[in-house]
């Protein structure tokens, strides 16, 4: 349904182009949950912005295609995006959604507003649909008359999801939907998003730095590093049969509640400067497997097993040593 081909998005800054999204390919089918995992500054949120073309002024899509049901979004103008794509086909639950509600309007009115503006339905009709949406996300419809400050963090997040669903989009992009929420509340939000997928058949792109959260929800996973996809595949393959050293590094650095006490291992160094990324493989300065080849030649994203793609010269070695 959504197909992204060779997408490059750069920010123009005083020190040069920041290559935030650099040659990204992926596909999203109907009803699928795609997880995008990576450190901060790896281009996850820029990718989400590019899909909706909600980008700051200094950002530019250099090349690539974003095919939504066969139609390319890249050449579309702002008004076309607004009338054809945003909200109705792709909608966004933004990062820090808890602060995304306007504090001086009632929550229900804010949800209804998106419907009246985009489709021109009557207010009463929009209200009725708002009540239904609130019920769907597990908020008592009578709470729609309340203001955002009367909502708890989890309820605000639910309201934001209701708003994103208001025009029954085909794709929901959730950018860090549960940061700043407590675990029990987070669990509720995860359940809600999965039930939305089940009942409405909405595809979800879940952007997060939390490996575990993505593992719980996603069918397919993209691991991003420095603007590039380093590993992509069914989540079972990516998590259990990891082929990229970065994926393995993330897993070793992540505390798993099921395991006995262990010493976590961090990935040495920090993410690279995206203006002048390292030559060859971008992960090479931090990689325990790095050899001369990695500094000289950039590995391509290759399908090494059916449906499992990895961008590493030494993925076979990683597979042998990874366990």
């Amino acid at each position, binding site marked *: 349904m959504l197909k992204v081909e060779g997408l490059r998005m750069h920010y123009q800054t005083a020190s040069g182009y920041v290559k935030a999204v650099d040659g990204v390919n992926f596909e999203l089918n109907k009803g699928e949950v795609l997880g995008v995992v990576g450190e901060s500054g790896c281009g996850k949120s820029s990718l989400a912005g590019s899909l909706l073309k909600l980008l700051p002024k200094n950002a530019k899509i250099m090349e690539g295609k974003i095919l939504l049901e066969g139609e390319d979004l890249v050449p579309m103008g702002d008004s076309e995006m607004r009338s054809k794509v945003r909200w109705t086909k792709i909608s966004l639950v933004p990062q820090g959604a808890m602060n995304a509600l306007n504090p001086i309007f009632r929550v229900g009115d804010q949800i209804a507003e998106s419907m009246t503006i985009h489709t021109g339905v009557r207010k009463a009709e929009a209200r009725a649909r708002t009540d239904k949406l609130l019920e769907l996300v597990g908020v008592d419809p009578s709470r729609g008359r309340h203001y955002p400050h009367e909502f708890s963090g989890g309820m605000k997040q639910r309201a934001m999801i209701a708003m994103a669903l208001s025009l029954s989009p085909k794709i929901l992009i959730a950018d860090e939907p549960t940061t700043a929420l407590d675990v029990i509340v987070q669990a509720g939000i995860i359940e809600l998003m999965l039930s939305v997928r089940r009942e409405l058949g909405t595809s979800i792109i879940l952007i997060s730095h939390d490996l575990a959260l993505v593992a719980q929800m996603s069918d397919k996973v993209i691991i991003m590093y420095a603007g590039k996809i380093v590993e992509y595949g069914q989540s079972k393959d990516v998590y259990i049969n990891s082929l990229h050293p970065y994926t393995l590094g993330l897993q070793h650095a992540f505390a798993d509640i099921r395991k006995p006490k262990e010493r976590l291992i961090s990935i040495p160094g*920090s993410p690279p400067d995206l203006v002048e990324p390292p030559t060859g493989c971008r992960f090479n300065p931090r990689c325990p497997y790095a050899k001369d080849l990695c500094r000289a030649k950039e590995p391509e994203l290759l399908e090494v097993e059916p449906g499992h793609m990895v961008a590493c010269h030494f993925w076979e070695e990683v597979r042998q040593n990874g366990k």
Partner: protein
Amino acid sequence: MKDLIATHEELPPRGYRMAGVYITLAMILALVTTIVWLAIPLFVLSFPVLAGTFFEWVYLKLGVYTLVLALISAIVLRRTFLMRRALNRREIFSLKELNSAFWGAFALVLANPITGFLMLLARDSISRISPPPLRAGSEGKILIVDHLTKLFPVRRTFAQSFRGEADTNVHAVDDVSFEVGKAQIYGLAGESGSGKTTVLRTVLRLTPPTSGSIYFEGKEISTATRREMKKIRPRIQVVFQDPYESMNPRMTTYEIVSEGLSVNNLATSTKDSHEKVLKALRDVQLTPPEEYIDRYPHELSGGQRQRVAIARALVLEPDLILADEPVSMLDVSVRAEVISVLLSIREKRGIAVLMVTHDLALSKDVVDQLGIMYLGKIVEVGAAEKVVGNPFHPYTQALIAAVPVPDPTAPKIRVLARGEIPTNISPPSGCRFHPRCSFAKAICSEVEPPLAEVRPGRKVACHFWEEAENAFLKDVKSRGVMEPAN
């Protein structure tokens, strides 16, 4: 608190008695002097014989002088009074605290030398009093929090007062007790609003406790004077949650780390301060430190910033570090490095850490003792690995069941607790968790379960913890995940 006073009563009270006598005398003298100096100008002015002469002018000048003396006397009188009250309450234990009271005495020499002399005698007797004994059972403990309660008052609105409603309180922390051993990492976990951060703030004395005591190395700090706190503060240091917000962007790493040294006069020279800063930076694995000292915060990554924040705490050679969610703002890939720094300074320098966290998976790997808080109460305590591996309290179980695991084949997380955390303005009766608990019975809404040791080293506050434990173990077995510890 009661036994503390009792032990003081047993102390040889001679020093107190003598100081009391001296101060009482000084007080009476100060009173007399005040009256005399006030009376002199009135007396002079009431002499009609001198009216219009040169002598009247002289006496009027003198009158101003005596008024000043009277004022000084009055100030000293007040000080003697305050000191007497403090003595009666057994609040003065150290020489330093008294010193301020004596500046007045020196100034008084002109006004009344005898009072000044008496005050000096009182100081002398008090200086011989030994400090209060340490709290019993504080050996090997760096921090003891004893029945700590913190309420924040909520004023009723005008409308509420009409309806006859009373003022209420937010029960932020309610009767919390725990002990942090030397070189121990103690974790407090719970949802937001459970009172974790308020405990930290009270330990730092950023906010006074409503009741209860906090002992640092056996000395009570909840009632310590400002001068005493000044001594204690460098030994309790804080690492804040967000390294992007907790540093001055216009200060270099060197300035950030060395500031505490100059504020507390802990460096003997510039060279000494320089060496201490470099050592602290090396201890947090920012090597070589020379490369980092001139950088500004924006030139550091999140993990490096948090390590600078730890260095800033370390440079004062503290015995206790309070860490408020030290890694929650950091990327997963660098969390481990900050955690390993915390673990290594504990090993090398024997520094205890009181850590507030909501990440149970991480606390199992980092923390020695873990206390789970819910609505201002500790509901479960024990070795972190055991609490996380085999939780007894239904709330702890709910927290653990909600933590996602990085394995797509594992069973999905579940929501075991119903609804959301209630307000702590009027917390539920009985067990505070009962409205959300699936094991709740009638007794739970009536009787509050005490935090009792049910297994060696494991405390839990639940009437039906055995039932909950069995249910959890059965569930774990049936799902075939999580090897339960214990």
